[in-house]
């Protein structure tokens, strides 16, 4: 959180430069996030993201607790996607300690992770349109669907958002047959919602005018800046950790990775819609293939786990991008080093590059298309 508002150097001969501090309580920043913007007229000539308002040193807290104790804290990173956060952390611990996961647990992990992706993308699309001035209606449509997924999470784990559901070696509770039927009943409604959304908006003139060509990100810069997730794929780079690492059982499912062409806000918006369709496909296959069996490796000591000294990096494709956890063990019950690779924060690296030369109103739309959650940016 650094502030260098005071050194203003008007660029000679280019008119007056105005400093605008957008945030930390601007409604479009989706949390406590600030942008130090310098404007020439309406044009952005400099933009520095400033964050850290929610910093609580999550990593230090986790290093002070046992391996098990960090799981509920990971819920609070990207608080819209607690299930995938749990998975990323559990995957890292499983790699560190050499733990295997029963097949049924792997299937349920895929189901809840894809439901998480769906509700995150639905929420994002709603928020993005809200930022563009489509006040209320699209957001309410998106939240109507998101609500159904959160109800499922509540009946499975007891909590709508802070699920605390996964454990290294498996899951905390099993999914009942009734719950799986509930998911099966929900599935046909999801493509209908997407059709409705697309019919309304895909060729909408205002949406196209505001988003096409806005916030362009080139392929080369996206790769160099470590941008991941739908944002990377909107720039045309075919990189999805589900396909590359095939963690869990993702090699068993048939799905495609949508790719964009222009790397602008419109492509990023479409990427989310298309990914939601693929998510529905994965869910259908997972629900068909789920076997009976245990959900927890009985040999795993949840309390008092002492992995051998060493280190491991586990990463998953979270809805926001590559979510990774890097752990160093010194042979005791607490991790010696616990590090989160926050996709939201790293995707912000190129925010300035995307916004330079654009109007200030486009900054709002560009930021909306990055999909940040400040709980994860600040940790």
């Amino acid at each position: 959180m650094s502030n260098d508002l005071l050194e203003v150097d008007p660029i000679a001969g280019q008119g007056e430069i105005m400093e605008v501090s957008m945030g930390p309580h601007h409604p479009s920043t989706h949390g406590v996030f600030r942008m130090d913007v310098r404007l020439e007229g309406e044009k952005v000539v400099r933009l520095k993201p400033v964050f850290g308002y929610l910093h609580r040193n999550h990593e230090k807290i986790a290093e002070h607790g046992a391996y098990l104790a960090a799981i509920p804290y990971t819920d609070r990173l990207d608080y819209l996607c607690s299930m995938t956060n749990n998975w990323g952390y559990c995957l890292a611990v499983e790699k560190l300690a050499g733990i295997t996961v029963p097949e049924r647990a792997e299937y349920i992990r895929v189901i809840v992770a894809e439901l998480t992706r769906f509700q995150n993308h639905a929420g994002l699309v709603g928020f993005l349109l809200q930022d563009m001035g489509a006040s209320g209606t699209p957001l309410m449509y998106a939240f109507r669907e998101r609500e159904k997924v959160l109800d499922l999470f509540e009946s499975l784990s007891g909590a709508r958002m802070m699920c605390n559901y996964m454990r290294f070696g498996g899951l905390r509770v099993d999914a009942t047959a009734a719950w799986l039927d509930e998911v099966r009943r929900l599935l046909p409604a999801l493509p209908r919602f997407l059709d409705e959304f697309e019919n309304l908006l895909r060729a909408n003139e205002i949406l196209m005018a505001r988003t096409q060509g806005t916030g362009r990100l080139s392929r080369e810069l996206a790769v160099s800046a470590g941008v991941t997730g739908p944002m990377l794929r909107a720039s045309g780079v075919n990189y999805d950790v589900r396909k590359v690492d095939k963690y869990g059982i993702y090699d068993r499912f048939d799905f495609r990775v949508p790719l964009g062409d222009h790397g602008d806000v419109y492509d990023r918006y479409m990427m989310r819609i298309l990914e939601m369709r693929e998510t529905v496909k994965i869910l259908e296959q997972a629900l068909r293939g789920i076997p009976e069996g245990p959900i927890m490796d009985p040999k795993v000591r949840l309390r008092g786990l002492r992995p051998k000294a060493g280190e491991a990096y586990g990463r998953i494709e979270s809805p926001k991008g590559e979510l990774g956890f890097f752990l160093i063990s010194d042979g005791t019950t607490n991790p010696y080093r616990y590090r989160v690779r926050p996709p939201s924060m790293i995707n912000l690296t190129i925010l300035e590059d995307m916004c330079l030369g654009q109007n200030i109103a486009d900054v709002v739309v560009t930021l909306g298309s990055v999909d940040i959650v400040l709980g994860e940016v600040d940790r």
Partner: protein
Amino acid sequence: MSTLPPVEDIKAQIEAGVPGAVVTVVQNGSPSAQHSLLLGREHARDAALFLRDHAELRLDFCSLVTGVDWLDTETSEKVKVKKVVEGPDGTQQETEVEETRKTKIPGYLEAVYHLFSMEKKHGPVVIRVRTANRADYAHVPSLTPVWRSCEFQEREAFDLYGIVFDGHPDLRRILMWDGFADFPMRKDYVPPDDDALATVPHGKSPEVQA
């Protein structure tokens, strides 16, 4: 998807491609078996460029950058030393005496980079660069000119660990506030015993500089 050569081969390739580079393999005892490469500070950036541009490795994606704090360690061993002592009758006698000898191994800060290839879809290759000591501002070369993704993450390691990345374009605190003078992720950091809500500088010295 191609597979990566073992780290020993990558080490040999760096040593052949970057004259003078010092590379050591750091073994990893966990089942993940991700051994890493420790680069000497002097040639770290050249080695990183080599890894990025190598036609087969093409490690174009630096996923994770982080700091690790390794404290000073002290090992003690008992050694038998021959010493001349004055006996009870006043004569000089040579006897064996047991002594504890302590050796202090100085700690260091470490920057760890996880590299992947988006083009070849392989990885990770883990590289580490160590500072000379655990002084307040300990230096390593910045790899931001090689991979843009290091920009914010190196700033974070600077902010929380006090690792100064030489050559970083914009090395400022990122999560803590300006004027904060300590490095909270260090293992020997003691949180101040003051009002948790007061955002006034505390700790060692008021100025923060790279």
